[in-house]
């Protein structure tokens, strides 16, 4: 892709190098620690489903029981598969049931017992990850059979709280033109330290992410994809305290994209920073393997801070997300880095500033399927003005080759969209795409002009902030309130009690497979990005 902003490649390289240096200590921490949710994800990948009579999942019961007896420093796999083998239990669910009643005995096996436990656990995880591989192949086959929509993909949200209401709404949205359906989660699910079980019909402003809900929605969208001759992608949220488990369930049920940011939970949900980074690495290894495109959450910074003043924090976070993502094995084509159109429309030249920011991000990450978020902060309730602002968002999106457009609703901030509001929003984006879809090829900001200067300014500020973060340490920078406006100390927030330092003999059969295989996976299902050409 040719640069339209005359970015200095040396400055860009400095920015990437600084992001790597800032992120490396975090990766070291993630490599030497585990969490209760990582260990529960191992059991989920091995096929353990279901919950006890109180609705507490068996994976929680089993991990808690192991932690209280043998400890989790060696991982859950060794003690669990040792108990399974020596205790005569037919399966993990039976073992979890016994463990919950205090009947099962756990130990760290040694010698022949250890080898036997390792072999059994590795075989179980090979089967589970084999299922993720099969889903990836199945996605590819579905795309070949039904068709790959051109970019930008149109991303719409459904959220009724009831999966059986969500399904017809999602199918209707797909028929109206949505290429990606996101099912928003119930408020507060990110703070639950377990994943609810089964199909759910009640939620607060969203629908619980559960394995069964994932399965039901994917099956419904498969049906609609065949009907429409276009593969409709499904998105959910791998964030919060159960990030690794939700990522695993997404892989097991063939979700296509997942919201998965490296710092969102820390800043906006007060989840412990260490817990977040450890969980995040494992989650991203799963996503890499499953061919899932992650969506990062930089748009959120612009809803709390001023979108002009904080523009460089978006770029810094994107570079951090890129480093952590690539380190975990994600291909560039799986990095749906986020940003947003959130500048106050009363600011002079606001559209030029938006163009500068969007084009800068496009050029910094030429192979990433960028996710562009519509205005929310300055949607005032004046639906007519909001409709106009959404049109400018769409125009900026097509001019700067954004890959995934979350479609703006004129009722943003008032209520959930009416059927007609969604229809009008799609009419808006269709008009802009048909009328100006090829404007990108002629959009060449004047050398030395306002847009180019603004892009260089933001990149310069990003480098300065990255240098500070590298010198201070990322955890200290987060504790100082560098991102968002909130201070999040490394030992504060929720979930720190679920972080465990790995012992020398730590064994995680899922990680072993993922670390081995991650770089050998071909980017088969990843969309190919060819700049403006993708749409023509």
């Amino acid at each position, binding site marked *: 892709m040719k640069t339209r902003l005359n970015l200095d490649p040396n400055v860009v390289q400095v920015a990437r190098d600084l992001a790597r240096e800032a992120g490396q200590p975090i990766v070291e921490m993630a490599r030497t620690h585990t969490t209760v949710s990582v260990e529960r994800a191992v059991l989920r990948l091995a096929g353990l489903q279901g919950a006890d009579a109180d609705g507490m999942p068996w994976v929680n019961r089993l991990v808690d029981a192991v932690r209280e007896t043998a400890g989790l420093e060696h991982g859950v796999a060794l003690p669990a598969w040792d108990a399974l083998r020596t205790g005569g239990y037919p399966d993990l669910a039976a073992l979890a049931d016994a463990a919950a009643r205090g009947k099962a005995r756990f130990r760290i096996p040694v010698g022949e017992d250890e080898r036997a436990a390792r072999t059994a656990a590795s075989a179980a995880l090979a089967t589970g990850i084999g299922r993720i591989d099969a889903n990836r192949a199945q996605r590819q086959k579905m795309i070949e059979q039904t068709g790959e929509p051109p970019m930008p993909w149109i991303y719409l949200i459904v959220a009724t709280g009831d999966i059986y209401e969500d399904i017809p709404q999602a199918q*209707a949205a797909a*028929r*109206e033109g949505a290429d990606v359906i996101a099912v928003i989660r119930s*408020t*507060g699910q990110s*703070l639950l330290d377990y994943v609810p079980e089964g199909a759910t019909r009640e939620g*607060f*402003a969203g629908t619980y992410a559960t394995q069964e809900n994932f399965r039901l929605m994917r099956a419904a969208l498969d049906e609609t994809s065949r009907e429409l001759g276009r593969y409709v992608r499904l998105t959910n949220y791998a964030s919060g305290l159960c990030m690794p488990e939700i990522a695993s369930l997404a892989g097991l049920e063939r979700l296509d994209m997942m919201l998965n940011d490296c710092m969102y939970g820390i*800043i*906006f*949900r*007060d989840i412990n920073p260490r817990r977040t980074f450890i969980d995040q690495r494992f989650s991203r290894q799963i996503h890499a393997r499953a061919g899932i495109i992650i969506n990062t959450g930089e748009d959120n910074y612009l*809803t*709390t801070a001023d979108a002009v003043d904080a523009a460089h924090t978006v770029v810094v976070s994107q570079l951090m997300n890129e480093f952590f993502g690539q380190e975990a094995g994600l291909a560039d084509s799986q990095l749906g880095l986020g940003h947003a159109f959130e500048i106050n429309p009363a600011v002079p030249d606001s559209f030029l500033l938006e163009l500068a920011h969007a084009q800068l991000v496009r050029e910094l990450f030429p192979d990433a399927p960028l996710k562009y978020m519509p205005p*929310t902060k300055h949607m005032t309730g004046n639906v007519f003005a909001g409709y106009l602002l959404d049109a400018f968002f769409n125009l900026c999106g097509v001019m700067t080759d954004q890959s995934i457009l979350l479609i703006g609703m004129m009722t*943003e*901030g008032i209520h959930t969209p*009416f*059927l*007609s509001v969604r*229809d*009008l929003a799609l009419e808006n984006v269709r008009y802009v795409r048909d009328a100006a879809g090829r404007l990108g090829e002629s959009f060449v900001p004047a050398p030395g002009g306002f847009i180019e200067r603004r892009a260089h300014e933001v990149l310069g500020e990003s480098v300065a902030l990255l240098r500070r973060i590298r010198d201070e340490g990322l955890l200290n920078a987060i504790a100082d309130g560098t991102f*968002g*406006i*909130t201070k999040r100390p490394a030992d504060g927030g*929720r979930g720190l009690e679920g972080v465990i330092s790995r012992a020398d003999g730590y064994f995680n059969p899922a990680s072993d497979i993922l670390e081995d295989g991650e770089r050998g996976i071909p980017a088969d299902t990843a969309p190919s990005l060819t700049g403006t050409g993708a749409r023509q």
Partner: protein
Amino acid sequence: MIGNIVRPYGDTTGDGRVQVSFTLPVPFGTPTEQARAEGAAMLLAAKMGLEPAMVVHAKGMGPEFTFFIVYGRVSHLVDMSEVTVAEREFPLLSSAEVNLRIRTGLGRRLVVVGGCIGTDAHTVGIDAILNVKGHSGEKGLEYYREIRVVNLGSQVEVPALVARAKAEGADAVLVSQVVTQRDAHISNAREMAAAFEAAGPGRPLLVVGGPRFDPAMAASLGVDKIFGKGTTPREVASYLAYALAPEGSGGVAA
């Protein structure tokens, strides 16, 4: 009094012109369906008091729905003397105004300690008010520069809450209660209020919230303020600024 009577203004005084848009669950496919759909829209408009009305836009959305834009004239009159306005005892402020009020009225950051007391593990409510994330498009109290938030999370014991509030120098204590079995929310709130009273003079402002509280019960529970269902962070922040950093107070808390 004729001057007190108003009606909608299109482009001429008293013309009563309005525009509405709505969707009906009727098809808009064949010419017959289209005629019936527009007829249905006209009927609805008439029943809404739009007379005459004109369907200026009709569009099928999928096989089962039609969207309409209708312009018409309403015959209704509004007597301005009949208008009543619900009074809130405190003004609703923007985050910048809240911050300014605290800076000028209190002269330091306002400290809020929050959590769910008793056995209640449902932190959805308190998190929606306290977390930066907030809800309903409004950022939580953590977003306010001049408010320092200490969120203790769920299942906080009352003695621990009292001790922490004292240690942090809390100006206000926010407690959320969702679980209401056997009126646990009532007894827990009373227990908390009594514990703060017992801890001596200069107790922090006590604020409770939850879907089942009756906002009129504050005095009987021994707390200063109750917020019910649908409360947004901005309302809570505005109340805290009003109660703890009144205008012109010059640093003396109410």
